[in-house]
């Protein structure tokens, strides 16, 4: 039994880690702007295409860092162009702008690729096959949870113990008073998009190394699941997003292991509904008590 489950468990932890890297981007942006950044999944997909094109033009050790830089830049530009001008607009406007950016990016990717699936390059080392006991898997499966934990711990330290982290926490609570402290809120907001896109870029390398090709809509499903993970864990909470993502990754793979593959996606969304019904703030969601 265990022998049969183990590969799925490993895959679950790994996929969970990849969801987590995306989910942190959703949850951080929500924490500061109270915005669901619908374009985040497409930024993740774009990172996949950056790798396809960059790896074709230059050696991987140049291409990989460049993918991270390009993804971060994309996240930064999206915020400046599509969200910043709407800072004082009603929340609905900025949400619609996010949906618009999502479709824009998707269609740009259709345009550039001509709608053809592109071969994702084989990354050395993390694409290698390894065997753990009875399970044979890719190195990425083992590396992902380690990288995820390291990055998330680093992020939490940044937020808890640095000046910019303190500013981020302050801005997430009160724009106006943060400005009265001399904090440039636009820089702080840009910073959250930079961090979110950075993690999505890392996540994309780990995620796509499990697949052979990238298509413009391939990021939609992991993006959506990462979003569910963020809500499940309590949107706004970084540890919540990570734990939510891990649970979703493991559960959907265990469901595959017991033979209900067809239902594995349905499970994720059923979980979302159940969580929202019984605990609207998610596992670690903050109570939003209005103080007088």
């Amino acid at each position, binding site marked *: 039994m265990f022998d049969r489950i183990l590969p799925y468990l490993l895959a679950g932890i790994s996929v969970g880690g990849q969801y987590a890297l995306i989910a942190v981007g959703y949850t951080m942006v929500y924490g500061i702007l109270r915005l669901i950044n619908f374009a985040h999944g497409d930024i993740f997909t774009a990172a996949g295409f950056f790798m396809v094109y960059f790896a074709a033009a230059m050696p991987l050790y140049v291409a990989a860092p460049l993918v991270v830089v390009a993804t971060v830049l994309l996240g930064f530009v999206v915020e400046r162009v599509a969200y910043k001008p709407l800072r004082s607009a009603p929340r609905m406007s900025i949400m619609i702008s996010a949906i618009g950016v999502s479709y824009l990016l998707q269609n740009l990717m259709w345009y550039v690729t001509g709608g053809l699936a592109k071969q994702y390059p084989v990354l050395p080392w993390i694409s290698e096959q390894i065997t753990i006991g009875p399970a044979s898997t890719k190195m990425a499966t083992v590396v992902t949870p380690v990288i995820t934990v390291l990055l998330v711990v680093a992020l939490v330290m940044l937020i808890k113990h640095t000046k910019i982290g303190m500013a981020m926490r302050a801005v997430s609570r009160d724009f106006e008073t943060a400005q009265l*402290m*001399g*904090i440039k809120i636009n820089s702080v907001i840009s910073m959250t998009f930079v961090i979110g896109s950075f993690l999505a870029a890392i996540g994309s390398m780990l995620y796509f190394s499990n697949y052979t090709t990238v298509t413009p809509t391939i990021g939609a499903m992991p993006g959506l699941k990462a979003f569910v993970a963020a809500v499940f864990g309590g949107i706004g909470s970084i540890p919540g997003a990570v734990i939510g993502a891990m649970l979703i990754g493991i559960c959907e793979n265990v469901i595959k292991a017991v033979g209900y593959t067809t239902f594995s996606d349905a499970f994720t969304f059923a979980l979302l509904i159940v969580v929202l019904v019984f605990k609207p703030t998610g596992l670690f969601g903050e109570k939003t008590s209005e103080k007088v």
Partner: protein
Amino acid sequence: MSLLKVTDLRVSYGGIEALRGISFDVEQGQIVTLIGANGAGKSTTLRAIAGLVKPAGGSIVFEGRDITTMDPQKVVASGIAMVPEGRRVFDNLTVHENLRIGAYLRKDETSIREDIDRVYELFPRLRERHWQLAGTLSGGEQQMLAVGRAMMTRPKLLMMDEPSLGLAPLIVKDIFAIIRRLSDSGITILLIEQNANAALRCANVGYVLETGNITMSGTGSQLLSDQRVRDAYLGTR
């Protein structure tokens, strides 16, 4: 030369004029108070000076520099701090972090530490609770923290928006005692208050604001003894 000179300041919110051209001066070292009813434009005045709302007209000059359309973070950097209405401490930050964030623009680590110590000396309750989240403090303690946080910017001018609002009478007395102490230490204070009696008692100069206009001005004691002020704001007949 006045420390702060406001001339013909006008502010509108979506076509409605909240300030219809007010002018007043704040001299170095004084406590100046603006009194008036709800909606008279007191908060708007402070928010315009702080850079949180952009004036439709008029000018704000601080230490001879025009700050009329300056961004809030530049206004802070130039030496104006604000204790916002309702305290607005960062309830998800500790007491200590709230003070540190007041010093956000400062780089002089040793003097930041000294200033934090000074705030703790002024408010021993904050030292006892320095590790607690600010959201767990009582209203009076939060007000002290908001004042301490503003002090951390090393202001030349401290603006306070309704510091006594919603606090118990005993705490209100403390707050006004603190305002006097800050003033004695050389900080210029611009205070707005609904508690006109207490505000005028500690102020050197007062202005009465009515529906966006300044209708009266004088020293604190002049206004205190003025029959119209007494009728309208002091509730003594």
